[in-house]
């Protein structure tokens, strides 16, 4: 584990050295974003530098950045107004759902994607269902899943629906895109079907798989509010956002939104780091 941490540290230092300009641009972009947010809020509130302007009612819907930052830290040290749970408890509940939904999506989407990518018959059988269900927003499934499957697994399955299709489609695309010349070459060298699969198809598909995983995790977090809106046992960040919005505690609502953003960055970042380690280990980079 310590080697991994050392490696991560080295990677960060190296990235800073090599990508200094890009880092500065990213920081500048974030500063601009916060400034625009502050100005928009000041404009709505009629505060400096827009003192002459009368505040509008919708100002309450866009609190100042520092109000949200305060609410964010406060949410970890004070329980929420409804459940006596702290933000840490909500994060834990949501992470459990994301992890479980991801695990379910991974074990089902990867084999199905490989199958669809390498077998035209399988694709013909599975593609209509995939295309039929893919565009349905997870929110539409909420009443069905929470009632039919229950309050523990219902939210997990909603997250699963969000992660499943990006992984499935990416893996299918990867498996379909394998250069036939590589397969012919392997066959010429005497490789059997299993060896072709493990030595050619799987390595070729891995970058697509990892792209699908990263996109899927992001979408999984996008589904968390819908997943936890109703009947979420143990709360969750999505439940927290929905609940605070219902009572117009918008400072807390934004704090929940910031938390989801940070969790998404964290989990997608971990997936990206693992991706790099995987490529290195496989010798493809």
């Amino acid at each position: 584990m310590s080697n991994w941490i050392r490696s991560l540290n080295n990677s960060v230092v190296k990235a800073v050295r090599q990508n200094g300009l890009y880092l500065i641009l990213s920081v500048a972009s974030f500063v601009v974003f916060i400034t625009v947010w502050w100005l928009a809020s000041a404009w709505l509130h009629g505060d400096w530098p827009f003192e002459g302007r009368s505040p509008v009612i919708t100002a309450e819907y866009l609190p100042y950045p520092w109000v949200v930052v305060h609410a964010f830290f406060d949410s970890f040290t004070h329980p929420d107004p409804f459940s006596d749970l702290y933000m840490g408890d909500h994060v834990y509940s949501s992470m459990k759902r994301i992890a479980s939904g991801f695990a379910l999506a991974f074990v089902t989407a990867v084999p199905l994607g490989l199958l669809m990518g390498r077998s035209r018959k399988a694709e013909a059988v599975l593609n209509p269902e995939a295309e039929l269900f893919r565009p349905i927003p997870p929110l539409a499934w909420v009443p069905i899943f929470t009632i039919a499957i229950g309050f523990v697994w219902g939210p997990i399955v909603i997250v699963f629906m969000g992660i499943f299709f990006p992984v499935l489609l990416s893996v299918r695309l990867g498996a379909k895109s394998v250069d036939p010349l590589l397969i012919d070459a392997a066959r010429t060298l005497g490789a059997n079907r299993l060896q072709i699969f493990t030595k050619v198809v799987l390595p070729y598909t891995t970058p697509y798989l990892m792209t699908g995983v990263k996109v899927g995790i992001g979408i999984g977090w996008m589904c968390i509010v819908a997943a936890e809106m109703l009947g979420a046992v143990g709360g969750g960040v999505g439940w927290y956002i929905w609940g605070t919005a219902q009572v117009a505690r918008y400072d807390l609502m934004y704090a929940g939104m910031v938390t989801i953003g940070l969790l998404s960055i964290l989990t997608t970042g971990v997936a990206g780091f693992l991706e790099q380690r995987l490529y290195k280990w496989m010798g493809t980079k």
Partner: protein
Amino acid sequence: MDKKIVISVGVAVIVVIAAIAAALILGEQDDKVDKTGTVYYITVPPKDMRASLSTGDIDGYISWEPYVSDSIVGGVGVILEWSDEIMPNHPCCVVAVSNSFSGGPNGPDLTSRFIRAHMDATVWMNNALSHTSSADYDLLVSMAMDFTQRNETVVKAAFDHIEYGYEMNTGFRSALEDFTDMYIETNMTTNESLASRGYSSASDFVTKYVNGTYLSTAGSVSPSDTILNPSNPIRLGYLLGDLHQMAQVVAQNTSVLGTGKSMFQKYGLNIADATGAPFANGGAEMNGFAAGAVDIGYLGAPPAILNHLNAGVGTTIVAQANSEGSGIVVAAGSGIVNLDGLVNKTIATPGPSSIQFLLLKIALQREGYDLKIKT
């Protein structure tokens, strides 16, 4: 390379299985029994409560009518306590008006006329409900069936537990003050929010937020032969299938008076559903008020209070719509006969900002029990 791939796939499968196992184990740990006198709640939309009760996902629920009678009539649940046993004459739904509407051109006159129609509709309903063999009663039941999408038996049973009224007496104001104090106590709103809206206390807030002027002036409103706002209809907000808000259904119906006109039309009003109506809950309706999409609306008192204090939504409560009409239901055959039986059980509520959540909390606190989210 070959071995590495096989190992990597193997490790991935093990990780995935471990994650599922961990989730299952953690889930089981979360279900451990607590013997400290706690009742657990989760949030479920009222329309889904009966189904959740029948599947055993919840042990009971608290909701408004007709979702209470829905389970009782269907044999899925039995009543544990009606809300009047928890808090007699407790306020529930109210009529709120947008301050920008009531303060705008013709706003006071149009609001008074609206309230007059609301009063007439309430009187008509109470009269119909007290004569269950009358044609008016049949018409009311028919309208309620259409509005709630529930059958006749459910609707008739539900009517027995709702008190329709428009007056805002001392008890009404006192209850709203208690609710506000409870919201401050639980941090759903704060004294700072109260002060920032210009109120010195919960009592001062209720005094100013509840405006009885329109009820006073509505009595002298005369019918109008012409529609006074033909091109600018009053945009009406109300909740989906909420039987507590039947007054607006009655006031819009053109069969009630037998003149071909609705009660709103009788007083010269053109009414249209606000964009977004019927709303899923009071919070959504208050967002409609904030967005300037709702002029007058029926909703629960708590979301009106909380959204006004926390987000400054410019509304005022101008009439009551109903009191009581909620109840705690437990699964039929569960053996639960009193609140003690709810300890360690899971009870669904429409959400922490609902009046039903407050009533459940009040009932349990009285017995010395805590209400906590199901974990």
